[in-house]
């Protein structure tokens, strides 16, 4: 099963707005994607409550996994998202 390891760039970690943007993007891929902290249990990446419950901090590594058609493209998109400081996006 394709998977990627990525460091969360957002200053607040995967909480609040970054978590919302990430889970919405995961749902939009149409592919079932999971996210886990390294060594931790994998949870549904489209579930905001599950993602918040991981308590991922800034600079922490997470593992994204997906299966089926379009899995690699979906993962690449999400990796790019997590590598960005999502707090800085759209800030005015």
């Amino acid at each position, binding site marked *: 099963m394709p998977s990627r390891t990525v460091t969360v760039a957002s200053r607040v970690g995967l909480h609040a*707005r970054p978590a919302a943007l990430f889970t919405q993007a995961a749902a939009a891929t149409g592919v079932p994607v999971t996210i886990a902290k390294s060594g931790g*249990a994998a949870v549904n990446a489209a*579930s*905001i*409550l*599950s993602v*918040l*419950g991981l*308590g991922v*901090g800034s600079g922490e590594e997470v593992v994204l996994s997906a299966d089926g058609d379009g899995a690699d493209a979906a993962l690449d998109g999400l990796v790019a998202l997590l590598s960005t400081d999502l707090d800085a996006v759209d800030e005015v």
Partner: protein
Amino acid sequence: MSRTLTGVAASPGLAAAPGVRWDAGEGVAVEPAPDIQTAARRVQDDLRRRATEAPTSEGRTVLEALSLFAGDPELLASAEAAARQGVSLPDAVRAASGHYAEQLRALGGYLAERAEDVLDVGARIVAALEGRHVAEIPNPGHPYVLVARDLAPADTALLDPTVVVALVTEQGGPTSHTAILARSLGLPAVVACAGARDAADGHALVVDGDLGEVHIDPPTAVVEALTARAERQRRRTTAVTGPGMTKDSVPVALLANVGGARDAAAAAESGAEGIGLFRTEFLFLGRTDEPSLDEQVEAYADVLAHFVGRRVVVRTLDGGSDKPLPFLELGAEENPALGVRGLRTETVRPGVLERQLTALSAAVVRTGCDAWVMAPMVSTTTEARWFASMVRGRGLPTAGVMIEVPAAALRAGDLLPEVDFASLGTNDLGQYTMAADRQCGDLGTLLDPWQPALLDLVAMTCAAGKAHGRPVGVCGEAAADPLLGAVLVGLGVSSLSMAAPALAAVRATLRDVDLATCAEAARLARSAPTAAEARNAASALLLGA
């Protein structure tokens, strides 16, 4: 005719405006939703629409997050799974939202504040299933005091703080959602104020969030005196800086409660002299396996690094009860607040605490921090002795206990010689002393931290601390109330730990009173037969000083 209602002070400050009654749960009847998915979609659409109408950007953010919670696939799948096993649809939704709320609460900090949001979303989905549509916050076209039974997150997200100038609720305690929200918005609030809806609607009100009083149609002289006092306090709070101390220079360490590295960074910036409560649960939450030693060392060091050279009081894992930790596999309990929680989890899952202490010890070596390590839910001298030997055996020199079980306060004279310090957890100590569930909105008055019985237990603990030369601090919500903080100092407490935003007001109040006045306020409070009389007697002395 003028009169005064007394509740529990939940957020400091003073505001004057007409009262407007609001009955949130009593909206119009609608067609009940046939299934969980339909109900959730209806709630989600409603929250999205409200988000576009929110008067503040904070409100819009809260409502957008709530709408995501309402559509969360795991939340809905978990509720549907329970429903398939024969649980009623509303109960299935309540159980699923309760589960996720507990998970967030155990993470502490920002995430713990989202727990109420999940429960609110669950309640809205239940309302849709039962055919109720939730009413909206009134907008009478002028500033007003919102008077309600209780407030939920989605209600308060629509609050415009320039229109709603204070909050009064009949339910809720000092740790309720209303109280937390009011403090974050800087709105004065009085909770657990019985009869407020009937008495206050349409009347001129002055809400006194320092004393927990609501003045109805007050005479002009009262309004002027209160306004002058509020203005004096506001000026003092911004003017006083530096370390915590009384007027006669008796030091009182003003510390912060934190739940992770992000809180710690904010606390360090806010002028906290150290950390008085580092909740370590964040790392363990939602885990089906125990975090590795290396992962623990990293996480603890991240927090400790913000307070090198200063005191950091670390509380070991406080799992069980309202903070279920899956990897401990403790199972369901009939009465979890009285069950296997805190230090007690070590008796059924031995080794977890030992590994946590080993990781803490390594993190201390790496950062050079002055870490004090304490255990939650200690009841007996035997437990205190056992914990202290384990802490010292890991090379951590300073071991302590939380005093949150009445038995531990009553026998503090036996417990304290076994350890180096104690910290009073007034939220749980209040819950256990008054036999009143902290989560129960109807019991706010019993949970008032001014209850003389609670003050007695604080006094007993401090007396034992003095006799044995052991410092005693407070790390519950009580420490964040400036007047009560002065009373606690008068009882013999040497440090107060609170959420970082509360530090400035406590610092300013302490700097204005000497230790003898604090002690006299404490004596007056303990001599009073009721919580309200305790607060009145102590406040009159402290505010007149």
